[in-house]
């Protein structure tokens, strides 16, 4: 199915958020996630289903003022 990850369309075979993240190479990275604007905690990524067209944000620590 097609999903939008950080603003770019991706094809994924993953059905849960955790699977999608490891598919995309974020497996061990320190990141926070949101689906369709709602925060998804790391602890529930394995149980969070992904649907066609979902907008997923994967954010990491960055410089800030």
């Amino acid at each position, binding site marked *: 199915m097609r999903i939008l990850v950080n603003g770019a369309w991706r094809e994924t075979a993953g059905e849960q958020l955790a699977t999608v993240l490891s598919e995309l190479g974020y497996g061990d990275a320190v990141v*926070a996630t949101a689906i369709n604007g709602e*925060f998804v905690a*790391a602890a529930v990524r394995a149980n969070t289903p992904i649907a066609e067209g979902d907008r997923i944000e994967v954010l990491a*620590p*960055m*410089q*800030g*003022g």
Partner: protein
Amino acid sequence: MLELYRTSLRSRLLLGTARYPSPAVLTEAVRASGCEVVTVSLRREAGAERAGQGFWSIIRSLGVRVLPNTAGCHSVKEAITTAHMAREVFGTTWIKLEVIGEHDTLQPDVFGLVEAATILCRDGFEVFPYTTEDLVVAERLLAAGCGVLMPWAAPIGSGRGLNNLFALKTLRAHFPQVPIVIDAGLGVPSHAAQALEIGFDAVLINTAVAQAGDPVQMAAAFARAVEAGYGARVAGPIEPRDLAAPSTPVIGTAFRG
């Protein structure tokens, strides 16, 4: 000691981590500043580059406390989601809450700010609201549960110093017990010294250090200015007056009478 949400800090200078020429300069500037709190942010991570992971390991090696921000958020919903993401990634309930309302000045949307602060305080966050000098907004933020105020001195990155001195002094006078950190718009160390002299508890600096010709030296200069300003505040500055008052004793002056 400066106390922010029951955390005692020796340094009254908080430093931003953006816009430095290199990670090495950032590291040196943080050390030179003696700061104990740095601000950080969250941005989209590109899978392969892992820039965020490298940055985070640098920050962790500095041994300072982090204050994550919600920079770039223009709505209450964005700010709240970002705050939750930051709490998980950075492992802190502290959040510098920014809800931007206007593109050119990056002026806070104070209506959205109060709304977001109310929700986040209820959710257990310790909110540092980036606000204007408006008294009524400050009151609403405190009523929402904020234990710190962070009014701007001038627009972010403008380096203009304490733009609205009268209103800032009024804000200080109205909330004498609330820690107030001047955030945004300071350009040179004298601005920071002035903020501390007139009674503000701390300053948060980013661009003025990061974009200086020599950020490390500027970080050290700001640290000294903050210390000088606070020292002056504690020492009790004289009141300005309109007429001269001779400092040399007048009694015994020669050639008189």
